[in-house]
C-alpha cells in the first residue's frame, strides 16, 4: 500500500532543469471512480486511497460503506484533545439506542502514520474500550494524508517536537459516504449532530 513509483515520462525541459534525476513520491490522490457503482459525486468514497487498520488489515476508505459512519482525524500520542475526541464520540453514542448504536460505525484516521503503527492503534483502541466490531483506527500512506484531510476539511500541522496541531471535527457520513453533518463541539454532545445521526440510521 505504500506506493512509491518512479515514472519516466519526458517532461518539458524548458520548464524543468534537464539532467537531474527526478525521483518523485508518486501520490495518486483524487483517483476518481469510473466504475458503475453509482456513488454520489460528493461521496468521500470517490477518493481511492488505502488505509491500514489496527490489525494491519488494508482496505479502502469505504470499509464501512452501507452503514452510517462517524469519521475523525487524530493521532494516538496526542495528550489532551484527542482522548476528548474519542470520549465525545462515546458520549454521543450513549444517546443512541442499542439497536441504533449497532448500526453505526466509527473510523478514526491517524495524522501521524509514522508513529501510529497498527500495534499503537490497537493499544489506543483497548485503552478507550472501543469495540473493534464497529470501530477502527487506521493510518494512511503519508502521501495521501493531505488529500484525506482535504476531503474531510481537517487542518493539521506537524510541530518541530513531533506533536501536531489539528482541528477536531467529527463528520457524519451517510450509507453512501456523503458528508451529511459535522461538529466541532467537544466534551458535550451536539444536539443537532445527534439528530443527524439518528436520521441517517433510519
Amino acid at each position, binding site marked *: 500500500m505504500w506506493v512509491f513509483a518512479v515514472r519516466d515520462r519526458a517532461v518539458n525541459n524548458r520548464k524543468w*532543469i534537464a539532467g537531474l534525476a527526478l525521483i518523485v513520491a508518486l501520490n495518486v490522490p483524487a483517483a476518481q471512480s469510473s466504475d458503475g457503482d453509482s456513488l454520489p459525486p460528493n461521496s468521500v468514497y470517490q477518493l481511492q486511497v488505502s488505509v491500514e487498520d489496527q490489525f494491519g488489515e488494508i482496505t479502502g476508505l469505504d470499509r464501512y460503506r452501507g452503514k452510517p459512519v462517524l469519521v475523525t482525524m487524530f493521532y494516538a500520542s496526542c495528550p489532551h484533545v484527542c482522548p476528548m475526541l474519542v470520549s465525545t464520540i462515546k458520549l454521543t453514542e450513549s444517546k443512541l439506542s442499542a439497536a441504533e448504536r449497532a448500526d453505526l460505525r466509527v473510523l478514526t484516521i491517524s495524522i501521524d502514520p509514522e508513529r501510529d503503527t497498527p500495534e499503537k492503534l490497537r493499544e489506543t483502541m483497548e485503552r478507550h474500550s472501543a469495540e473493534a466490531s464497529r470501530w477502527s483506527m487506521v493510518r494512511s500512506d503519508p502521501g495521501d494524508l493531505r488529500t484525506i484531510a482535504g476531503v474531510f476539511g481537517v487542518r493539521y500541522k506537524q510541530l518541530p517536537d513531533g506533536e501536531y496541531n489539528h482541528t477536531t471535527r467529527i463528520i457524519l457520513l451517510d450509507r453512501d459516504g456523503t458528508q451529511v453533518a459535522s461538529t466541532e463541539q467537544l466534551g458535550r454532545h451536539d444536539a443537532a449532530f445527534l439528530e443527524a445521526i439518528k436520521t441517517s440510521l433510519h
Partner: protein
Amino acid sequence: MHIPGGEFRSVIPEEEGDNSVAVADFLVQQAPVTNAEFLRFVLHHPEWQRGRAVSLFVDDQYLSTWAGSISLGPESGPQQPVTQVSWFAANAYCDWQDARLPSWYEWEYIAAANDNMADARALPEWRQDILSWYSQAGDDRIGEVRSGSANYYHVFDTHGLIWEWVDDFNAFLVTGDNREQGGADQLQFCGAGAITMEEKENYAVLMRIAMLSALEARYTTRNVGFRCARQSSE
C-alpha cells in the same frame, strides 16, 4: 527552475520565537500553469473536465471561465494562468507532471525575492509594490504569465498576477474569528494551539495565509491558480 535551498525567516515559524526555517533544494515551474497547459491535462484526463469532475473534488465554479469543457474562450486566454481550479485539481495536474504542489515554505521562499535579491522583504518599496497589487487585485482581467520581470530565482509571477495553492494549504490553523470566543472553541486545536504569526508587518504575505486558511480543498476562485514543484535530487 532549480532553487537552491537555504534558511529564511518565515512569517509562520515552526516554533514561537524562532522564525528561521530551512528549505531544501527544489525545482519549481517558472510561471503558474496556464489555461493552455491545463487544457492539455483535461484532454488527457477527461475525468477532470468541467461537468465530469466529481463534486467531492471541485465546486460548481470549477473552470467556469472557460467557454466549454474543452475550450478556453475569450475569458481565459491560453497564456493566462488557469484559475477556478480546486486544490484537488491542482494536485492531479502536478501529479500528471510527475510533480507536486510546492509547500508553503517553498512558495514563501521564492516569493521573498525581488529581481536581484533572494530576500527583498525588508525593502519598503518591495512591500509597497506588492501591497498596491493586493489592493487592486480582483478589479481587472488577469494578465498573462511572464508579463512582468523574473525574480532573483528566474521565477515569474509570485506576486502581481494570481494567488497560488500550496501543498500544505490546510496546515494553517489561523482562525482569527475563533479566538475571541475562547472556551470550547480553543479545543478545536489539539497540541500547542494556533500558529503564531511573526513578522506582522509583512502584511501582504499574511494576507495570502489568511486567504488560504479560508479555503476548502474543493473550492475554486477567480484569483487562485498554482504552479508545480519537485524534489531536487541534487
